[in-house]
């Protein structure tokens, strides 16, 4: 009997410190059969458990076609992520997953894609950017808009610079509190959206970050003429099980872990930003 509660052991192949509070783990299931059948979509997540410490939901940032390993980028935010940050290559973690619904990559084919992120490095969308760039000819223009509070909060800075040199890729960064050497905009990510010249017929937008930022971005995208069906976002809630059973992640009638974490805006419009949901 398949047991969705039961983790499988995975070994850390590589650890990268992305910034002072953010690190990435490259993982591989110990059981090669489990690794062979492991498939996921960008935007899906795994439950990572550390022996005797706890279990947390973390999105998968690697490409679904990389069949030998999978990557997680983790921000130290609490007791479990703190303990995970101390792990080194060859250490073990438990993995359950993948869970949830990922980004609408099929719907995005042939479309211009607007990626809007805010806050400290938004892993669920980094997986999308990498996915798009690796399959460049299947998508239209790519707009990458990232907002941070302080310029030091930007991780993967070199990656943004690399992405900006790709054909048909428009990278714009904004820092609310930029330093002297900040080459991009000062202000909020929503101000970057204003500068876009959207082809409303063939655009899809994907958002990730603090909900207030996403609400402001959604308002702006709708003002510019995008329909609710063209706006997608990733949400975060307390998740204990990962597959719609424990009830802790519910937003109105939606189980974020199972129905999401990626939602079309129209699915959660009634509850997004409503206090207590």
């Amino acid at each position, binding site marked *: 009997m398949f*047991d969705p509660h039961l983790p499988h052991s995975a070994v850390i192949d590589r650890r990268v410190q992305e910034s002072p509070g953010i690190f990435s783990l490259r993982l591989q299931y110990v059981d090669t059969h489990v690794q062979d059948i492991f498939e996921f979509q960008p935007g899906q997540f795994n439950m990572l458990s550390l022996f005797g410490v*706890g279990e947390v939901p973390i999105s998968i940032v690697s490409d679904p076609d990389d069949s030998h390993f999978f990557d997680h980028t983790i921000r130290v935010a*609490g007791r479990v992520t703190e303990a995970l940050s101390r792990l080194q290559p060859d250490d073990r973690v438990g993995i359950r997953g993948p869970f949830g619904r990922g980004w609408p990559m099929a719907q995005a084919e042939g479309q211009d894609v607007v990626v809007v992120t805010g806050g400290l490095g938004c892993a669920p969308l980094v997986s999308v950017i990498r996915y798009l760039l690796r399959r460049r000819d299947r998508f239209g223009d790519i707009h990458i808009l990232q907002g941070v509070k302080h310029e030091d909060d930007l991780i993967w800075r070199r990656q943004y610079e690399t992405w900006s040199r790709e054909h048909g890729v428009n990278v714009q960064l904004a820092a609310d509190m930029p330093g002297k050497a900040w080459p991009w905009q000062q202000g909020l990510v929503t101000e970057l959206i204003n500068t876009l010249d959207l082809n409303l017929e063939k655009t899809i937008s994907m958002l990730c970050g603090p909900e207030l930022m996403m609400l402001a971005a959604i308002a702006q995208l709708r003002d510019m003429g995008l329909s609710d069906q063209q706006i997608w976002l990733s949400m975060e809630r*307390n998740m204990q099980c990962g597959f719609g*059973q*424990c009830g802790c992640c519910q937003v109105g009638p939606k189980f974020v872990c199972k129905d999401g974490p990626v939602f079309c805006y129209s699915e959660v419009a009634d509850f997004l930003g409503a*206090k*207590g*949901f």
Partner: protein
Amino acid sequence: MSAQHIAARRPGFMERERLQGFLDVFRLLGYRTLGPVVEEETIQWREVDTIDALPTGVHARQGAGEYHLEVQSDNRLFAWNHGPQAIKPLLFSAEETLWHERLMADGQVDIKQTLPEVKPTAIFGVRACDLAALALQDRHFLSQQNPDPHYRIRREALFLIGVDCAFSAATCFCTSTGDGPSLGEGFDIGMAELDDGYLAWGGSAKGGEIIDGLSLEPATEAQLNSMIQETDRAAAQQHRFLPGETELKQLYDKLNHGHWDEVGERCLSCGNCTAVCPTCFCYSTGYQRTLDGRSAEMKRQWDSCFSQTHSSMGQFMLRRETALRYRQWLTHKLAGWQEQFGRSGCVGCGRCITWCPVGIDLTQAVAALLDGGLADV
């Protein structure tokens, strides 16, 4: 009770004296037999091997924040409505181990599945509302893409003997949710208690076989009429009610209603309502380590949308205020469930009213929120 409903039952009559023999059948078939027993001044599911252990003449007087057992002279064994718990804890355990881990000498971790070992279990005296709740829990724990193996193992071991309710407590409102007081479906054997015995009928193939083996006399017209009168009386004793499901969906339009704060002022956020609710399914998980640090168990335990941790992500708590927690519970139970499971999550058992230490009554809250004035209680 509709004519069609009665015709479908085709019950046989079992004299009171034969009840012990009926119980013995299950023990002979290898079942553990659970029945209602008075314990800690409430009705609890306990192992019973003699009908003398059943609560003779015991009625449960219930009100908002009140539960008292009273003995009357009617000698009925199933006159009580229900105790604090439905069948939920027997399937969805209040605490259990999901997996076991052991740290090996070479630094590897050995992860082992832990599943419950259960004996076939027959439960005597299950209520219509509890069966309706069980059907909902089955949908939640079994009809998903990832069914729960712990729940399934316990569920498959159950044999359910339902009994029509002949009396209602003041907190009952199953007639308005359509879940009682007569048995609907989901039982293996159905029974109705009359003054001199029981009407019994099969509700499943395995239940039907046992009934056939008893060679009961078909019920007389008078006995069938008594059966109807018993549940009609229970229905007539109900005064609380919930509005229809279409109206309940409107609770999501009342998120800013002032009544949430009024309830929030009284609510202790204790979680009694979710613990006794036969459909509430929330849980949280956490490790429990042995003292030597070499092994650990991942436990799950019932959680509640009234707890602090339920809505917490790291340091951030989504629902700090009690009013928001009560709103989460009520809107989910009565409106959110409809989208998730095709019906409201309330089966009208009234346990949340009875076991609330300050007597908060969801039927009154709903009436106030939907501007219908106070429910007629």
